[in-house]
């Protein structure tokens, strides 16, 4: 844990709520990245960020000071994203409507007016396939994969975050990688 996190948390718990601002400013970018990878669009990711910090604040007293605050925060964000994905899937299924065409619910469909070099380099064809492949992952597969691949969390940490066993977490990651590989194999081998 960032050694200052613990001190700040103590101050917040002692009644100085404004100190929580430091944690928000410190971790907003990383929580947004996680939320965006999970939800696939900016506006939903913003909602996840906001809700994550609100939930973290409300349950700060339950935080175990021996643990890493960022891991704990990611756990809240991942679990909220999981709920969000499940609710979205349920709504889509019950409404029998196709997913929003602009935001297919898979990986980010970024429409930037000022594309960075990375975005230009990243092939549109791969992007399109990746969106489709990510949309096929179950909520648990996507969460486990995002936490492992992008957030560099260990399998044990992920299984604790998801409340499932280590082998179930491993299987989720394996299945996610296999699905992504199936979709992207022709393009990846050509690069």
């Amino acid at each position, binding site marked *: 844990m960032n050694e200052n996190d613990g001190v700040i948390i103590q101050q*917040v*718990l*002692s*009644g100085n*709520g404004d100190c*929580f*601002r430091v944690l*928000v*400013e*410190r*971790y*907003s*970018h990383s929580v*947004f*990245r996680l939320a*965006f*990878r999970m939800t696939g669009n*900016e506006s939903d990711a913003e909602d996840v*960020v*906001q809700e994550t*910090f*609100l939930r973290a*604040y*409300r*349950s*700060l*007293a*339950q935080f175990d000071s021996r643990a890493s605050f960022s891991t704990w925060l990611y756990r809240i964000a991942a679990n909220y994203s999981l*709920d969000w994905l499940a*609710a979205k899937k*349920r*709504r889509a299924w*019950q*409404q029998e409507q196709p997913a929003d065409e602009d935001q297919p619910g898979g*990986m*980010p469909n*970024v429409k*930037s007016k000022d594309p*960075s070099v*990375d975005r230009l*380099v*990243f092939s549109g064809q791969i*992007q399109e396939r*990746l969106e489709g492949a990510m949309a096929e992952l179950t909520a648990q597969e996507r969460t486990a994969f995002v936490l*492992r*691949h992008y957030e560099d969390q*260990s*399998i044990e940490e992920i299984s604790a975050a998801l409340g499932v066993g280590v082998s179930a977490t*491993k299987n989720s*990651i*394996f299945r996610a*990688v*296999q699905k992504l*590989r199936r979709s*992207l*194999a022709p*393009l*990846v*081998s050509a*690069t």
Partner: protein
Amino acid sequence: MNHLTDEQLILHFYGEAKGSAQLEAHLAECGECKVQYQTLQRLMNTLDGTPIPERPPDYGRQVWNRIAPHLGGRPAKARPAWLAWLNNPRQWAVASAVAGLVVMAFLVGRFAQNESNRQELASQQQSRPGEVRERILLVALGEHLEQSQMMLVELSNAPPSRKIDLSEEQQRAEDLIAANRLYRQAALKADEPGVASVLEDLERTLMEIAHAPSSASAQELEDLRSRMAEQGILFKIRVMETQVRQRQQAGMQQQTIGW
């Protein structure tokens, strides 16, 4: 050594494989596995290039400005362990099972007692109008819980649409709130804090439904469902309803035995 499995390659990529040195040695020797591993690496590197929309440098401040008005006072104190225990559905199931055993043990004791003192008990039963009142209350409470449960289940399973008309549910919720208050007060008077506590949770949920906009959006309904799920209110009601029914049955058995 056999070829490496997909799982081994993936775990090795993430540095979580057991016997990593052996795997490295195998990859150095086995061309087929090496190709597999390189393909996997290419896939993973491609994924790393996924663009993320950039946030401005003062993004943290923006987030803080959005959430600060909703933070309220200081964070809630850590809940005592017993409260966390109460909110855990698994523990409720265990508690329910234990309660069932206690009731059974109690009944066995009563049965044995009745066997030896049947006549005496019969006369005692006749002189206990309180027990009759309790049985009537249990029946009414059981029905109240069943009706509440039915409404919450319907609400949980309502198909989401852009706007949902909650006016009918709100009317039912209003009726249930009035009855719920009476049962909660009766439970407190009867020194049944567990029952009163569940009824208090139920009352809060019913109030939330009654005071929601009569034309709720799908998101508002979803939020309501999430809060219900978080509180585990349906589960608590089911457990309590089961216990109430058990007590009803126990009362009837005692009556039968007494007669």
